């Protein structure tokens, strides 16, 4: 199958910015040239898909480095198939799946299983992330090299953060020698103390136990110190507080090898936006104060925050239609991420180039892959329609999860086509 895209505005930071014709063949970019330079496709070839790129923006395939696909073990929430298709519908060509499945991705067999399931699906790619410790219990290091051979590119204990500082130090040293990054869900569980939303006035009014900013930032500070000690690569997941951003900014200035991500909800919503006990606004870390939201936007703008990831966490309805303190943490994000992030451009916080860096290039750099739009590279490409207006409707989600706080929100901009491995895996229908 071949794809020819005519006259699309390409934004590939550091590589291309301008109108191009693109030809894709056998899964690769075959030609990328100034408009009108490509010879017309032979009339005879039936299987050429021609896309009129006018009005669209072509960017390197978007990558989401923090996604929960739930398979194996919790297929009622999401499967690898539904998750990867949801990603494609959101313009995302690759996702990194977290290891907290059942069984946990703490050995090469589970990694291989995930990759083989993903192979059956024509949608986004998957890059599995392995667990640091056996069964996420924070006791014993897994066979990380073995998992790396099977296909993981990073390790994390995500929601079961490593409390033991010595285990963390050894993990960093070990992963440094394997040259893979360690992803950190920064949370001191004792400080979070079973809280269900941000500690602050809204939590006090609602009588909900609060999670202080410090529950996140103390662990960010600890792991910056350990990154400095070991020289390993540390990546902080879903940053939500001003203090964490401040600490990471200082660490980067000092030359410590740290990177970080935030999620769209942290630059879009605050704890004051939570409608009375609406469990679709409950996630971990929680929605913070307006001061934190502003600090997140500032961190994105000045480069302290390298990338945007969703922390896509689908849950069944039953797990959300319960008391607030008992409801599951997490919201879905794959299908709203691009629309919400484009809002940063609309409001002038980021340029489009910066946004492409945060949603496509920086994740690729972290993962050690090259997703430049150049001949010979694998053809992963997102074509964005910047002008389409749409309203978030969970019933229309491809994901099994409906747990979003953005129901009814008007967004501008969406993926028109998602291309993975040289095949169109998603086309936005005009009915939207």
């Amino acid at each position, binding site marked *: 199958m071949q794809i020819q895209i005519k006259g699309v505005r390409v934004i590939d930071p550091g590589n291309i910015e301008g109108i191009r014709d693109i030809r894709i063949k056998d899964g690769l970019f075959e030609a990328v040239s100034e408009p009108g330079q490509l010879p017309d496709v032979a009339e005879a070839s039936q299987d050429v898909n021609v896309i009129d790129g006018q009005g669209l923006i072509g960017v390197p395939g978007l990558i989401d480095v923090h996604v929960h696909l739930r398979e194996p073990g919790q297929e009622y929430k999401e499967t690898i198939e539904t998750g990867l298709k949801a990603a494609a519908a959101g313009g995302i060509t690759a996702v990194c799946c977290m290891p907290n499945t059942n069984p946990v991705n703490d050995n090469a067999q589970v990694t291989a299983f995930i990759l083989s399931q993903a192979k059956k699906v024509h949608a986004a790619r998957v890059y599995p992330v392995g667990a640091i410790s056996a069964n996420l219990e924070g006791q014993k290091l897994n066979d990380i090299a073995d998992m790396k051979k099977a296909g993981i590119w990073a390790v994390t204990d995500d929601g079961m953060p490593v409390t033991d500082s010595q285990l963390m130090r050894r993990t960093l040293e070990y992963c440094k020698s394997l040259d893979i990054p360690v992803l950190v869900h920064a949370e001191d569980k004792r400080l979070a103390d079973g809280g269900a939303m941000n500690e602050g006035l809204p939590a006090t009014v609602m*009588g909900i136990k609060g999670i202080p900013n410090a529950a996140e930032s103390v662990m960010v500070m600890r792991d910056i110190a350990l990154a400095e000690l070991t020289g390993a690569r540390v990546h902080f997941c879903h940053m939500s507080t001003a203090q964490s951003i401040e600490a990471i900014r200082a660490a980067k200035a000092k030359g410590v090898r740290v990177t970080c991500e935030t999620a769209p909800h942290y630059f879009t919503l605050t704890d004051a936006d939570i409608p009375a006990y609406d469990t679709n606004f409950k996630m971990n870390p929680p929605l913070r104060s307006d001061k934190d939201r502003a600090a997140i936007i500032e961190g994105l703008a000045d480069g302290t925050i390298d990338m945007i990831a969703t922390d896509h966490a689908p849950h069944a309805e039953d797990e959300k239609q319960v008391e*607030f303190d008992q409801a599951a943490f997490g919201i879905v994000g794959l299908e709203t991420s691009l629309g919400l992030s484009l809002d940063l451009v609309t409001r002038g916080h980021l340029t489009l180039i910066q946004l492409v860096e945060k949603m496509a290039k920086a994740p690729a750099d972290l993962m050690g892959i090259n997703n430049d739009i150049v001949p010979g590279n694998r053809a992963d490409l997102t074509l964005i329609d910047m002008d389409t207006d749409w309203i978030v409707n969970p019933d229309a989600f491809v994901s099994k999860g409906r747990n979003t706080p953005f129901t009814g929100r008007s967004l501008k901009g969406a993926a028109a086509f998602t291309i993975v491995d040289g095949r169109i895996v998603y086309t936005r229908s005009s009915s939207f």
Partner: protein
Amino acid sequence: MRFTKKDILDIDSLTREEITYILDTARGMKEISQRAIKKVPTLRGKTIVLFFQEPSTRTKLSFELAGKRLSADTVAISKSSSSIVKGETLRDTVRTLESMKPDIIVMRHSSSGAAYQVAKWVKCAVINAGDGTHAHPSQALLDMMTIQEEKGGFEGLKVSLVGDISHSRVARSNIIGLSRMGARVTVCAPGTMIPMGIEQMGCTVAEDMDTCVTDADVVMMLRIQKERQGSLLFPSEREYAALYGLNPARLALAAKDALVMHPGPLNRGVEISTRVADGEHAVILDQVTNGVALRMALFYLVSGGTKHADSN
């Protein structure tokens, strides 16, 4: 005035006028409890379900008597008899209850916001009898009724509230209600029991107990939960009593005619000394008496009654 609220979920959703109207109605109801035949036919044929997921004797009894004195049929289900223990969700439980067509569900639950959620899931009236650390509107209203009885009103009164504010739904409801009615509320507790942002709910935080109690017109003590001893909130009952207990010496700092209140049950010798609890300033038992009248008023009002209870 017409009272149009379907549910009583917290104090925050009641206007000053609505609070006044509830208190006026409750005063009328109080007279019924003083009769030889303590029963009027007002709510005959109405069914009230008392759904208490959390243990409670006093509040449940008070609601039950209130319903019976208005001739409603009251049915109580508790955690052990409800299928919640068998893993049924709250939503399923209350929708099952509703299918039996009660007119009012009174509910107590250990999760903040549970009454809010239930009110969304069912069509009948919902009265919150305490949800987690969020709200306990009937307690705050009976406290206000007691203060109004003794003091004539709220404007300018200094009310001191001492105890575990963080974990107290009674404190939250009283802070909102009393400040809305014009009282000045001051709270006091160790820093471990003062939640973030509490000042913005309409109170000031005193730095110590003496400052808090000085010149107070009302001293409201909160029950300290003994099981929290040693849980990092406070080291020991002995130290807590020394710093935050209400004893005669401290009470002497308050206004001459100060009221001493407590939602019960008392921890004598911890947050309140026996001499104060049984002394002339204490209106703790009046609070209990008023509780029945106040809850009768709530039943009457959410059932659509808009006329003064006297007209019965």
